[in-house]
């Protein structure tokens, strides 16, 4: 699988389309300067992983991409992040509309205390994406299938999503995120609360989702970054130290700090 991923990365590198382009991004929490001048390009239909020691700002940067940071009062973002060439921090951009296009999956599975069906249909419903029950059924089924959960839950769509196992819950959250047909999927340590088997299933799923979505994943695990991503960005103390093809970063890091991190000397 690793080999295949690498091949893909090289193939992508040839005719890479930039989906997200960040320039000089700074994020402040009140006085604290959490992200310092980050420039990065994120390729379309590629999995990019953000790695780095805890508190390095990787999650903060991820949350800046769909403006989730707006929900924190003290948080301030400067610089530009362009989605398909349009600055998402432009005054004219509606964060609600943006988030429909840039979905997010969180660290801890957070299904709503509603039925499985209602969890998945929540996004499409609020965005008014479907008309009629049949369309909704179809969309829910499609999303659950893509999240690899359909076979496990098709008989109990009316049961609460909170009743599923941890791994299933996280896949439900992925299904919920992709039901709004986003172009970008942000995942904030999606496997950190899961056991190894559930983690393996999610990782496989991420690889499949790459076909349709641009994926950014924050992870603590270097193995996971190596397994699922084609591109890797290494953050340290709020700065982007190095980014590039995953293969490169892991085998031949240019920066000493990256090397130290990968070899386990800082973390």
């Amino acid at each position, binding site marked *: 699988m690793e080999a295949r991923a690498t091949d893909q990365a090289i193939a992508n590198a040839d005719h890479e389309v930039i989906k997200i382009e960040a320039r000089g991004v700074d994020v402040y929490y009140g006085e604290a300067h959490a992200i310092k001048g980050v420039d990065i390009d994120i390729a379309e239909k590629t999995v990019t992983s953000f790695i780095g020691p805890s508190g390095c700002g990787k999650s903060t940067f991820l949350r800046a991409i769909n403006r989730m940071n707006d929900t924190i009062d003290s948080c301030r973002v400067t610089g530009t992040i362009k*989605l*398909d060439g*349009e600055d*998402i921090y*432009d005054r*004219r*951009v*509606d964060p*609600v*509309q*943006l988030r429909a*296009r840039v979905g997010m999956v969180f660290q801890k599975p957070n299904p709503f205390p509603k039925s499985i069906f209602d969890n998945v249909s929540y996004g499409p419903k*609020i*965005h*008014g*994406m*479907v*008309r009629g029950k049949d*369309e909704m059924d*179809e*969309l829910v089924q*499609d999303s659950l299938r893509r999240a690899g959960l359909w076979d496990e839950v098709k008989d109990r769509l009316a049961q609460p999503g909170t009743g599923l196992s941890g791994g299933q819950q996280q896949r439900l959250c992925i299904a919920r995120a992709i039901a*709004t*047909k986003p*172009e970008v999927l942000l995942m904030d340590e999606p496997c950190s609360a899961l056991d190894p088997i559930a983690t393996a299933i999610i990782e496989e799923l991420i690889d499949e989702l790459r076909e*349709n979505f641009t994926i950014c994943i924050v992870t603590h695990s270097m193995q996971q970054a190596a397994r699922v991503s084609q591109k890797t960005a290494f953050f340290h103390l709020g700065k982007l130290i190095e980014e590039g093809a995953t293969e490169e970063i892991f085998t031949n890091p240019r920066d000493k700090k990256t090397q130290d991190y990968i070899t386990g000397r800082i973390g």
Partner: protein
Amino acid sequence: MSDIATRDIPVKAAAETTRSLFERDPKIKARWNAEGRFRAYGIGAISIGLMFLVVLLVTIIGNGLPAFTQTYVHLNIELKASKLDPKGNRNPDDMAKVMTFGYNPLIEQALEEDLAKAGIETDMKASALRKLLSSSVASQVRDYVLSHPGEVGKTVSFEVLASGRVDGYLKGRVTREALAQDKNLDAAHLDIVDTLVKKGIVERRFNLDFILGADASDSRPESAGIGVSMLGSLFMMLVVLVLSLPIGVAASIYLEEFAAKNWFTDLIEVNISNLAAVPSIVFGILGLAAFIQFANLPQSAPLVGGLVLTLMTLPTIIIATRASLKAVPPSIRDAALGVGASKMQAVFHHVLPLAMPGILTGTIIGLAQALGETAPLLLIGMVGFIASNPPTDLVAGFLHPNSAMPAQIYEWAKRADPAYYERAWGGIIILLVFLAIMNIVAVILRRRFERRW
């Protein structure tokens, strides 16, 4: 037009046609409108709540402030020896045989003379003019005479209470139209009052007696005060404090530090949380049945009121105390146990002192709640015309019938004369001042000693 086309094939469309981020989705406007409405409901709700608060406070202050001023009449009364001291020996014991009734002619005469001196001509009879003054004037003069027997025979200048109607007229509560059906006063009186005010004989000034004085009968609202029932409240609060603080702290220490997790502890917990929500009037029934019917404690006594309020306040204090005990980190207990202290020593020497500010805050808030409570006091008889004499000593303070501030306010609200409504509002101002002070002290205590672990 393209929007509509998009919606026609929604499932695929949303994913495949990328709209510019700068373009507004047509549905989004309605959604943001809904958002705005929702937010407006929230602001509206808070504004309504705050508006109620403002209206309430303005009503209280507007209606209650006049109670703190009272109308007085300056009167020069000739204390005729022939009337007041028939035996002529200036012995107060003998003079006490002249009841207030005997003073009335002197007062009427003084009033007539002072009016004449002021150049006011009236064809009203002296007994009618008397209605300008409070009926308490006679006993005021009598008290003065009995304590100053030497003054008999002289003309003494008194400052006496005007009647409630006159006071109401000067405060704008009594109008000339309203007097048409009033037996107590008529418009002619008011003309006299107007002139007297101009001459400075009738004067409205601050009335300390309202704050410190005793309740008065139905017909003398002008001399009613809240002072005695304030003492009743004070004695009740002493009982509550002395009982509920140690019992509440002891109960909390047991539940928080020693209690095993078993059915008995659960039973106590369930009881405490339920008692906290039992209507206060039920505690009144308990007080009536248990303390007065069963234990034969004296009715209307602040002691009984205090006992009832203690039972009512305990859950509040226990809940607050447990919260502050819980806030003391286990490391403190471990440290004490680690140097060989017994569990009891660890709790009393280390945990309790650290939790004390929180406990005191909770106790003050519990006391404030008890201070404002009315319903249970009505059932144990702390209402009616009983706060008429201040208690003579400590024992009497606890055992003799008395009212309490909120019960006194209720009593005044029930009386027929609207002059008493003003006093009820005024009483509320005093009650609220006490509550505000207690709560502010609690807040300061919390701020000052609040510890973050």
